[in-house]
């Protein structure tokens, strides 16, 4: 696999998706929501900064998720459906390079989007910190523009990189609509890892416990990436936890991209 070809494909995906109006709308909406969270904060005495922190992180996560799913599902299936893939694959490009390049391009797009949203987020929080009196700020658990919030933003990014891999995987063999449904379904199911793990307490020695145990290990553990509550309430998130979670996300995404490459490489474009 040629790294240069992957980068060239990734650059084209980035350029195309950044210009896609859907993306502008979503980013605009995210910014709007953060503005709204500030207004809500104005109405809530004493809890305003916490609400802004919470809402801001949730907005980044939700809008990042929409970008990852709705552009991710089209990465391959839209190319195949519209036949733009024909011209690309007639060039000296391996199918694996195209798939990996597309993945890298969208990960880059999501990273830039998160960076823009984080910048707006910190600007709002910085403003909050600047207008409040020192006496008022003494009641806060953490400063407004707390750098530890970046840990949550970073893990949202790792989670979205995994979501893109899921969307890419499904889009190599199914339609955009089905890919969206499956990706979203897997994202939701991935939040119930702890319930699946403890299911044996409910069902006892039934064979169902083996199914749920298997599901627990197979489904992506999306809850692991969610440290929003911890950082907003100034609870510690260790470097080891961040490293292990990152490694988990990277390995899971790599396995999905590898599976997508295998499927895509064998596919007939009818």
């Amino acid at each position, binding site marked *: 696999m040629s790294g240069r070809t992957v980068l060239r494909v990734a650059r084209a995906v980035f350029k195309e998706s950044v210009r896609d109006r859907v993306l502008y709308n979503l980013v605009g909406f995210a910014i709007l929501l953060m503005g709204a969270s500030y207004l809500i904060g104005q109405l809530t005495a004493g809890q305003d900064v916490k609400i802004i922190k919470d809402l801001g992180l949730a907005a980044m996560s939700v809008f990042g998720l929409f970008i990852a799913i709705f552009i991710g599902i089209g990465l391959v299936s839209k190319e195949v459906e519209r036949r733009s893939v024909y011209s690309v694959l007639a060039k000296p490009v391996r199918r694996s390079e195209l798939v990996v390049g597309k993945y890298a391009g969208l990960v880059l797009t999501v990273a830039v989007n998160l960076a823009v949203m984080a910048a707006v987020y910190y600007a709002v929080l910085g403003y909050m910190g600047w207008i409040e009196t020192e006496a008022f700020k003494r009641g806060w658990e953490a400063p407004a523009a707390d750098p530890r919030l970046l840990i949550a933003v970073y893990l949202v990014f790792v989670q979205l990189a995994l979501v893109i891999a899921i969307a890419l995987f499904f889009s190599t063999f199914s339609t955009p609509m089905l890919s969206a449904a499956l990706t979203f379904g897997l994202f939701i199911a991935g939040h119930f890892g702890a319930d699946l793990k403890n299911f044996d307490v409910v069902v006892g020695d039934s064979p169902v416990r083996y199914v749920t145990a298997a599901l627990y290990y197979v489904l992506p553990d999306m809850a692991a990436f969610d440290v929003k509550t911890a950082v907003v309430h100034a609870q510690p998130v260790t470097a080891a936890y961040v490293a292990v979670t990152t490694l988990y996300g990277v390995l899971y995404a790599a396995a999905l991209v590898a599976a997508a490459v295998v499927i895509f490489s064998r596919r*007939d474009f009818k």
Partner: protein
Amino acid sequence: MSPAIATDGLTKDFPVGFWRKRPYRALDALTLEVSPGEVFGFLGPNGAGKTTTLKLLMQLIFPTSGRAFILGRPVGDLAVRRRIGYLPENPYFYDYLTAEELLSYFASLFGITGAAQRARVSALLDEVGLGAERRLQLRKFSKGMVQRVGIAQALINDPEVVFLDEPMSGLDPLGRRDIRELILRLRERGRTVFFSSHILSDAEALCSRVAILAGGRLAAGGRLTDLLAREVRGWELVVAGIQTEALDRFAPRLAKATAIGDGRYVLQVPADQPVAALVGELASAGASIVSLNPVHATLEEIFVSRVQAAGSARTGALA
């Protein structure tokens, strides 16, 4: 010299049906060769297997059996793709890239970068008549303009072999003329052009050789001049000095007799009539033979007869 393109028993089955999949043969044991420097017309009605063949040559689909080679190497070889260009049928590109950006991206995939890339992209956009629209996003392009971009991207690497799937599709008469001229320029530069079409006038104007595909099978093929010469659909006989009553005796054996003045007649003789015997009998009846010429079938007539023959053979095989 090895052929520019060669296929050997190339066959493709597609599974059809929802529950119980059964194979549908889209291409059946296609064997053909295209020499370097040729403009080769790949003709056939819709659904004949033209696009399937091109997709097999581009490895967009994989053959059920048989092999294909381009420039002496298997089609899967990445090095082959550095030397070829391909225009898909009804091409579609990225909505939010400009024509210039798309061509630059495709050029970069061949390792063409920097000043060489800018020069190549600019020259090609001018060549296909899109110089003024180079900075327009592709979603604002008409179908004909997208087709022109498609042709430009197929030539981005100055390919030795160019594959064009229905290149005239979506183009107005001026656009079709431009593309015809472009194909002729490619031929002058010694490039091999393999193009599929169901517009026979284009094939007649451009091709040195053609293949006619019908029902997934090769129905006819060869040099265009040979193919047209081989197919005699009758004779045109000009006679003089024969009385009308005498000529009437020959009427059942003629398709048509037209008086052209000065006692001369143009006689249309069907291909199934023994023309030599007829000429002898006319001479005995007092006619002098002015000229005798075979009437060749047009490409369209050959096309229709071969496609119909292939259609009835397929129906017979299925019955």
